[in-house]
């Protein structure tokens, strides 16, 4: 059984199947095992795809922006903000430089100072959001020096340190997701192998008869693989549907819990969902292939 040809052959009905595999109790449970494995694998893969996509967006978003902080002492001079903005807007790499309103600053400080709003008397630094021309780079240290000449104490944050930590976290999350998929795959292979061996033991007499009337090992393996494909497809679709409903529920009900401050809310793209549809099919194919190999290896030891 190789490639899609073998897979399609398994889907074609065989009249008067010699083995009665559906009656085995262990096989009935295999549906649920495959469903659980597919559920976990789908969530893990979606996590990996989302984090990967999000890390790229974070990287692009933050690398193309700067946050300038005008200290409270500098805001005393109403001219200093205009000077800083003029200097920034004159930079060839800068696409846009806008001061954040006091209301927006209050919004950003809300997690620490509450939502009641900022007291008029509370001094807060002036923040300037700078967007760079796509693909353009700017030397933050050099810019900082030039800005300090017009507004002493000014700081320029290109988010480099924070971004690196974020990307490291994203890579770690992706690795964990991949590890989960690998573990789930191995567990599924073990479950199908054990189930197939149980089936072989239960069908020993019928298999002996099939051999005596001239059945090749692949004929018998085909029977097991076809059954495993059906079971895998059923379990895979149930697990996949449950995972998709869980994801939808998470994004519908999760709401603001999925927001991360200035960062955009992570969301799996349509491509991720298309890729995920492969999961139940892969689960079914894995079940069929595992059953096939288990049977062939077992029968090879018999006369």
């Amino acid at each position, binding site marked *: 059984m190789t490639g899609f040809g073998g897979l399609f052959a398994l889907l074609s009905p*065989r*009249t*008067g199947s*010699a083995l*009665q595999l559906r009656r085995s109790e262990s096989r009935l449970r295999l549906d649920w095992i495959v469903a659980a494995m597919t559920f976990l694998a789908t969530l893990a893969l979606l996590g990996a795809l989302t984090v990967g996509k999000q890390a790229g967006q974070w990287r692009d978003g933050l690398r193309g922006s700067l946050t300038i902080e005008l200290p409270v002492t500098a805001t005393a001079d109403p001219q200093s903000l205009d000077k800083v903005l003029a200097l920034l807007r004159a930079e060839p790499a800068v696409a846009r430089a806008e001061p954040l309103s006091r209301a927006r600053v209050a919004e950003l400080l809300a997690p620490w100072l509450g939502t009641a709003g900022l007291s008029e008397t509370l001094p807060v630094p002036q923040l300037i959001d700078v967007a760079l021309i796509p693909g353009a780079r700017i030397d933050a240290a050099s810019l900082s020096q030039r800005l300090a000449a017009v507004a002493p104490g000014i700081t320029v944050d290109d988010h480099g340190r924070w971004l690196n930590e974020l990307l490291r976290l994203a890579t770690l999350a992706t690795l964990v997701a991949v590890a989960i998929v690998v573990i789930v795959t191995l567990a599924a292979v073990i479950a199908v192998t054990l189930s197939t061996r149980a089936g072989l033991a239960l069908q020993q*007499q*019928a298999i*002996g*008869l*099939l*051999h*005596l*009337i*001239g*059945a*090749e090992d692949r*004929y018998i393996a085909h029977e097991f693989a076809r059954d495993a494909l059906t079971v895998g497809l059923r379990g895979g679709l149930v697990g996949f549907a449950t995972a998709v409903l869980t994801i939808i529920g998470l994004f519908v009900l999760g709401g603001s819990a999925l927001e991360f401050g200035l960062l955009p809310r992570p969301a799996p793209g349509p491509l991720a969902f298309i890729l995920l549809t492969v999961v139940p099919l892969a689960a079914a194919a894995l079940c069929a292939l595992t059953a096939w190999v288990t049977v062939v290896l077992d029968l*090879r030891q018999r*006369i």
Partner: protein
Amino acid sequence: MVRFENVGLRYGLGPEILRDIYLELAPGSFHFLTGPSGAGKSSFLSLLYLSRRPTRGIVTIFGRDLATIPRAELPALRRQIGVVFQDFRLLAHLSALDNVALPLRVAGVPEEKVQEHVVELLTWVGLGDQLHAKPATLSGGQQQRVAIARAVITRPRLLLADEPTGNVDDRIAVRLMHLFEELHRLGTTVMIATHNPALIARSRHPELRLEAGSLTRVARLGAA
């Protein structure tokens, strides 16, 4: 067709079930195999239908030494051998039609031909009205006829039958023997293990007797 040279068979470390067997079955021959229960008839037949290999000696079937035949080539040889087992070995979840069709389906015969041949043969053995009956609903004699139909459906070169008329009345027994004779006439080599002396007496074919693991040819007046 079949040749045994100094063949012995034992299970594990137990005593030899078969010993010093010399035999040659010519193509198209017909033999009865007799002997008391426990004499080793079933073990002897199991060597012939390639279920096991001898522990010593040489068994040659269709010109191939059983000891050296690669496992992958056994199915093709087994398809040339029809076997009627004493316990029938019908698959309980399959109908009479599907049981008989099994050797053809295993061999990849197109389904329309399978149906045609199987229905014709089952009708011939008197089970035309039981095509879709499961073995559990058939009598012992009917099950035996299904087992015989399954063994002969591929027109095997070698037909082995272990007590094939043990559960049928005389009329059916004669009919089944006619079937074996017809296959024999068409060139099939036949060996029938039986306890039924009347069956042997009615024919002129030679008798091989297995006793305490040793095989002897029984001298018969006018044997073929």
